[in-house]
Protein backbone atom coordinates (compact mmCIF):
# COMPACT_ATOMS: atom_id res chain seq x y z
CA UNK A 1 0.00 0.00 0.00
CA UNK A 2 1.50 3.37 -1.00
CA UNK A 3 1.74 6.27 1.43
CA UNK A 4 -0.88 8.21 -0.52
CA UNK A 5 -3.33 5.28 -0.44
CA UNK A 6 -2.62 4.87 3.25
CA UNK A 7 -3.39 8.57 3.84
CA UNK A 8 -6.62 8.50 1.84
CA UNK A 9 -7.73 5.39 3.73
CA UNK A 10 -7.21 7.21 7.01
CA UNK A 11 -9.06 10.37 5.91
CA UNK A 12 -12.60 10.69 7.23
CA UNK A 13 -14.08 11.74 3.85
CA UNK A 14 -15.21 8.22 2.91
CA UNK A 15 -17.16 7.88 6.16
CA UNK A 16 -18.62 11.34 5.51
CA UNK A 17 -19.68 10.32 2.00
CA UNK A 18 -21.40 7.16 3.31
CA UNK A 19 -23.20 9.15 6.01
CA UNK A 20 -24.23 12.04 3.74
CA UNK A 21 -25.52 9.66 1.05
CA UNK A 22 -27.59 7.86 3.70
CA UNK A 23 -28.96 11.24 4.83
CA UNK A 24 -29.86 12.10 1.22
CA UNK A 25 -31.59 8.72 0.78
CA UNK A 26 -33.65 9.14 3.97
CA UNK A 27 -34.52 12.74 3.09
CA UNK A 28 -35.76 11.73 -0.38
CA UNK A 29 -37.77 8.85 1.09
CA UNK A 30 -39.51 11.33 3.37
CA UNK A 31 -39.95 13.97 0.69
CA UNK A 32 -41.44 11.50 -1.80
CA UNK A 33 -43.73 10.05 0.90
CA UNK A 34 -45.18 13.51 1.54
CA UNK A 35 -45.29 14.35 -2.17
CA UNK A 36 -47.23 11.16 -2.98
CA UNK A 37 -49.74 12.00 -0.27
CA UNK A 38 -50.16 15.64 -1.32
CA UNK A 39 -50.13 15.25 -5.10
CA UNK A 40 -52.42 12.75 -6.83
CA UNK A 41 -50.48 12.92 -10.12
CA UNK A 42 -47.25 11.90 -8.40
CA UNK A 43 -49.16 9.32 -6.30
CA UNK A 44 -50.43 7.66 -9.47
CA UNK A 45 -47.08 7.98 -11.30
CA UNK A 46 -45.24 6.36 -8.37
CA UNK A 47 -47.41 3.26 -8.73
CA UNK A 48 -44.67 1.31 -10.53
CA UNK A 49 -46.14 -2.05 -9.59
CA UNK A 50 -49.87 -2.37 -8.90
CA UNK A 51 -49.53 -5.01 -6.19
CA UNK A 52 -47.27 -2.76 -4.08
CA UNK A 53 -48.83 0.57 -5.13
CA UNK A 54 -47.05 3.93 -4.85
CA UNK A 55 -44.64 2.52 -2.26
CA UNK A 56 -42.86 0.79 -5.17
CA UNK A 57 -42.00 4.12 -6.85
CA UNK A 58 -41.37 6.11 -3.67
CA UNK A 59 -39.00 3.56 -2.17
CA UNK A 60 -37.21 2.90 -5.48
CA UNK A 61 -36.60 6.60 -6.09
CA UNK A 62 -35.38 7.04 -2.52
CA UNK A 63 -32.96 4.14 -2.93
CA UNK A 64 -31.80 5.43 -6.32
CA UNK A 65 -31.04 8.85 -4.79
CA UNK A 66 -28.93 7.09 -2.14
CA UNK A 67 -27.17 4.76 -4.58
CA UNK A 68 -26.37 7.52 -7.09
CA UNK A 69 -25.20 10.08 -4.55
CA UNK A 70 -22.93 7.70 -2.61
CA UNK A 71 -20.30 6.95 -5.30
CA UNK A 72 -20.31 10.58 -6.44
CA UNK A 73 -19.75 11.82 -2.89
CA UNK A 74 -17.17 9.12 -2.27
CA UNK A 75 -15.09 10.19 -5.28
CA UNK A 76 -15.38 13.82 -4.22
CA UNK A 77 -14.54 13.28 -0.54
CA UNK A 78 -12.49 10.14 0.08
CA UNK A 79 -9.11 11.92 0.09
CA UNK A 80 -10.33 14.76 2.29
CA UNK A 81 -9.84 14.71 6.03
CA UNK A 82 -11.59 16.55 8.86
CA UNK A 83 -14.80 16.93 6.87
CA UNK A 84 -16.78 14.59 9.09
CA UNK A 85 -17.90 17.10 11.78
CA UNK A 86 -19.55 19.33 9.17
CA UNK A 87 -21.04 16.34 7.34
CA UNK A 88 -22.50 14.96 10.58
CA UNK A 89 -24.41 18.22 11.10
CA UNK A 90 -25.68 18.32 7.49
CA UNK A 91 -26.58 14.60 7.50
CA UNK A 92 -28.39 14.92 10.84
CA UNK A 93 -30.47 17.74 9.34
CA UNK A 94 -31.31 15.69 6.24
CA UNK A 95 -32.07 12.63 8.36
CA UNK A 96 -34.39 14.51 10.73
CA UNK A 97 -36.17 16.26 7.85
CA UNK A 98 -36.67 12.88 6.14
CA UNK A 99 -37.98 11.29 9.33
CA UNK A 100 -40.41 14.16 9.94
CA UNK A 101 -41.68 13.97 6.34
CA UNK A 102 -42.34 10.22 6.60
CA UNK A 103 -44.18 10.50 9.95
CA UNK A 104 -47.89 9.93 9.14
CA UNK A 105 -49.47 12.74 11.22
CA UNK A 106 -47.08 15.20 9.52
CA UNK A 107 -47.38 14.07 5.90
CA UNK A 108 -51.14 13.54 6.22
CA UNK A 109 -51.53 17.09 7.60
CA UNK A 110 -49.36 18.55 4.83
CA UNK A 111 -51.43 16.62 2.28
CA UNK A 112 -54.68 17.97 3.76
CA UNK A 113 -53.38 21.53 3.42
CA UNK A 114 -52.22 21.05 -0.18
CA UNK A 115 -55.28 19.10 -1.32
CA UNK A 116 -57.70 21.59 0.26
CA UNK A 117 -55.93 24.46 -1.54
CA UNK A 118 -55.95 22.56 -4.82
Amino acid sequence: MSAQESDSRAADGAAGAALLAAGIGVFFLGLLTTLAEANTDFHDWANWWDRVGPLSGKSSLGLISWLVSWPLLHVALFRRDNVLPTIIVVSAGLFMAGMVLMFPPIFQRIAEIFLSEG
Partner: protein
Amino acid sequence: MELTNRETWALIHGIILGTIFILSFAGGLAGLWSLRWELVTPEGIRERLRRLQVGTWGMAAISWAAVMTGTYIVYPWYRETPPEGTTDLSDYPRSLLLSDPGTDLWHKFGMEWKEHIAFVAPILATAAAFIVAYYGPRLADRPLIRYTAMAAFTLAFAAAGIASVFGALITKAAPLV
Protein backbone atom coordinates in the same frame (compact mmCIF):
# COMPACT_ATOMS: atom_id res chain seq x y z
CA MET B 1 -50.40 -27.62 13.06
CA GLU B 2 -49.60 -26.02 9.72
CA LEU B 3 -48.81 -22.64 8.21
CA THR B 4 -50.29 -21.20 5.04
CA ASN B 5 -47.97 -19.82 2.35
CA ARG B 6 -48.75 -16.27 3.53
CA GLU B 7 -48.12 -17.11 7.17
CA THR B 8 -44.82 -18.76 6.23
CA TRP B 9 -43.60 -15.64 4.41
CA ALA B 10 -44.82 -13.39 7.23
CA LEU B 11 -42.81 -15.61 9.60
CA ILE B 12 -39.67 -15.41 7.44
CA HIS B 13 -40.03 -11.63 7.08
CA GLY B 14 -40.95 -10.68 10.62
CA ILE B 15 -39.83 -13.38 13.01
CA ILE B 16 -36.74 -14.87 11.35
CA LEU B 17 -35.13 -11.95 9.45
CA GLY B 18 -36.44 -9.15 11.67
CA THR B 19 -35.55 -10.89 14.90
CA ILE B 20 -32.05 -11.90 13.76
CA PHE B 21 -31.35 -8.26 12.86
CA ILE B 22 -32.57 -6.91 16.16
CA LEU B 23 -30.88 -9.58 18.27
CA SER B 24 -27.54 -9.12 16.46
CA PHE B 25 -27.50 -5.41 17.17
CA ALA B 26 -26.15 -5.58 20.72
CA GLY B 27 -23.18 -7.72 19.62
CA GLY B 28 -22.31 -5.34 16.77
CA LEU B 29 -22.58 -2.25 18.94
CA ALA B 30 -20.45 -3.79 21.70
CA GLY B 31 -17.83 -4.76 19.09
CA LEU B 32 -17.65 -1.22 17.75
CA TRP B 33 -17.63 0.34 21.21
CA SER B 34 -14.70 -1.73 22.42
CA LEU B 35 -12.59 -1.28 19.28
CA ARG B 36 -10.07 0.89 21.12
CA TRP B 37 -6.33 0.45 21.61
CA GLU B 38 -6.61 1.01 25.35
CA LEU B 39 -9.01 -1.94 25.67
CA VAL B 40 -7.73 -4.48 23.16
CA THR B 41 -4.33 -5.71 21.95
CA PRO B 42 -3.41 -5.39 18.23
CA GLU B 43 -4.17 -9.11 17.82
CA GLY B 44 -7.49 -8.55 19.59
CA ILE B 45 -8.35 -5.66 17.23
CA ARG B 46 -7.68 -7.86 14.18
CA GLU B 47 -9.74 -10.74 15.60
CA ARG B 48 -12.64 -8.45 16.53
CA LEU B 49 -12.56 -6.71 13.18
CA ARG B 50 -13.03 -9.94 11.22
CA ARG B 51 -16.06 -10.76 13.38
CA LEU B 52 -17.33 -7.19 13.13
CA GLN B 53 -16.99 -7.08 9.35
CA VAL B 54 -18.85 -10.36 8.90
CA GLY B 55 -21.44 -9.27 11.47
CA THR B 56 -22.13 -5.80 10.06
CA TRP B 57 -22.31 -6.96 6.42
CA GLY B 58 -24.49 -9.88 7.55
CA MET B 59 -26.84 -7.51 9.36
CA ALA B 60 -27.00 -5.20 6.35
CA ALA B 61 -27.86 -8.18 4.10
CA ILE B 62 -30.50 -9.43 6.55
CA SER B 63 -32.09 -5.99 6.80
CA TRP B 64 -32.30 -5.79 2.99
CA ALA B 65 -33.86 -9.27 2.87
CA ALA B 66 -36.39 -8.31 5.58
CA VAL B 67 -37.39 -5.09 3.80
CA MET B 68 -37.60 -6.63 0.33
CA THR B 69 -39.62 -9.68 1.43
CA GLY B 70 -41.86 -7.36 3.41
CA THR B 71 -42.42 -4.89 0.58
CA TYR B 72 -42.64 -7.21 -2.41
CA ILE B 73 -44.03 -10.47 -0.95
CA VAL B 74 -45.99 -9.81 2.27
CA TYR B 75 -47.23 -6.23 1.73
CA PRO B 76 -49.13 -7.01 -1.53
CA TRP B 77 -51.19 -9.59 0.38
CA TYR B 78 -51.84 -7.04 3.14
CA ARG B 79 -53.11 -4.37 0.73
CA GLU B 80 -55.16 -6.60 -1.64
CA THR B 81 -58.51 -5.05 -2.48
CA PRO B 82 -61.51 -7.32 -1.78
CA PRO B 83 -63.88 -8.03 -4.67
CA GLU B 84 -67.03 -5.93 -4.83
CA GLY B 85 -69.63 -7.09 -2.31
CA THR B 86 -67.24 -8.99 -0.03
CA THR B 87 -68.56 -8.96 3.54
CA ASP B 88 -65.96 -11.18 5.21
CA LEU B 89 -62.77 -9.08 5.13
CA SER B 90 -60.59 -11.48 7.13
CA ASP B 91 -58.46 -12.25 4.02
CA TYR B 92 -57.91 -8.53 3.35
CA PRO B 93 -56.07 -7.06 6.38
CA ARG B 94 -55.91 -3.43 5.21
CA SER B 95 -59.60 -3.34 4.33
CA LEU B 96 -60.44 -5.11 7.58
CA LEU B 97 -58.56 -2.50 9.64
CA LEU B 98 -60.03 0.43 7.72
CA SER B 99 -63.58 -0.94 8.03
CA ASP B 100 -63.69 -0.25 11.78
CA PRO B 101 -63.06 3.22 13.30
CA GLY B 102 -61.62 1.37 16.30
CA THR B 103 -58.85 -0.23 14.23
CA ASP B 104 -58.28 2.12 11.29
CA LEU B 105 -55.33 3.84 12.97
CA TRP B 106 -53.38 0.57 12.77
CA HIS B 107 -53.28 1.21 9.05
CA LYS B 108 -53.41 5.01 8.86
CA PHE B 109 -50.64 5.44 11.43
CA GLY B 110 -49.00 2.07 12.06
CA MET B 111 -48.65 0.64 8.57
CA GLU B 112 -48.14 4.04 6.94
CA TRP B 113 -45.15 4.65 9.23
CA LYS B 114 -43.81 1.11 9.13
CA GLU B 115 -43.79 0.75 5.35
CA HIS B 116 -41.61 3.87 4.96
CA ILE B 117 -39.35 3.83 8.02
CA ALA B 118 -38.39 0.21 7.31
CA PHE B 119 -36.24 1.40 4.38
CA VAL B 120 -34.13 3.54 6.71
CA ALA B 121 -32.73 0.45 8.45
CA PRO B 122 -30.88 -1.18 5.51
CA ILE B 123 -29.59 2.16 4.22
CA LEU B 124 -27.96 2.98 7.57
CA ALA B 125 -26.86 -0.61 8.25
CA THR B 126 -25.10 -0.66 4.86
CA ALA B 127 -23.39 2.67 5.60
CA ALA B 128 -22.18 1.29 8.97
CA ALA B 129 -20.93 -1.95 7.38
CA PHE B 130 -19.08 0.03 4.70
CA ILE B 131 -17.36 2.22 7.30
CA VAL B 132 -16.23 -0.85 9.28
CA ALA B 133 -14.91 -2.59 6.15
CA TYR B 134 -13.25 0.52 4.67
CA TYR B 135 -11.41 1.73 7.74
CA GLY B 136 -10.67 -1.60 9.43
CA PRO B 137 -8.14 -1.17 12.26
CA ARG B 138 -8.01 2.61 11.65
CA LEU B 139 -11.36 2.77 13.46
CA ALA B 140 -9.39 2.34 16.69
CA ASP B 141 -7.38 5.51 15.87
CA ARG B 142 -10.33 7.63 14.74
CA PRO B 143 -13.03 7.77 17.42
CA LEU B 144 -15.29 10.13 15.47
CA ILE B 145 -15.44 7.73 12.52
CA ARG B 146 -16.17 4.87 14.93
CA TYR B 147 -18.89 6.89 16.66
CA THR B 148 -20.36 7.69 13.24
CA ALA B 149 -20.60 3.96 12.44
CA MET B 150 -22.13 3.34 15.88
CA ALA B 151 -24.70 6.10 15.36
CA ALA B 152 -25.67 4.77 11.92
CA PHE B 153 -25.91 1.28 13.37
CA THR B 154 -28.05 2.45 16.31
CA LEU B 155 -30.42 4.46 14.12
CA ALA B 156 -30.77 1.45 11.81
CA PHE B 157 -31.72 -0.60 14.86
CA ALA B 158 -34.25 2.02 16.01
CA ALA B 159 -35.88 2.14 12.56
CA ALA B 160 -36.01 -1.67 12.37
CA GLY B 161 -37.42 -1.76 15.91
CA ILE B 162 -40.27 0.63 15.05
CA ALA B 163 -41.08 -1.34 11.88
CA SER B 164 -40.95 -4.66 13.75
CA VAL B 165 -43.16 -3.55 16.64
CA PHE B 166 -45.83 -2.18 14.31
CA GLY B 167 -45.55 -5.25 12.09
CA ALA B 168 -46.23 -7.52 15.07
CA LEU B 169 -49.10 -5.37 16.39
CA ILE B 170 -50.75 -4.98 12.98
CA THR B 171 -50.48 -8.73 12.38
CA LYS B 172 -52.15 -9.29 15.75
CA ALA B 173 -54.98 -6.87 14.87
CA ALA B 174 -55.46 -8.26 11.34
CA PRO B 175 -53.62 -11.54 10.75
CA LEU B 176 -52.35 -12.45 7.31
CA VAL B 177 -53.92 -15.84 6.63
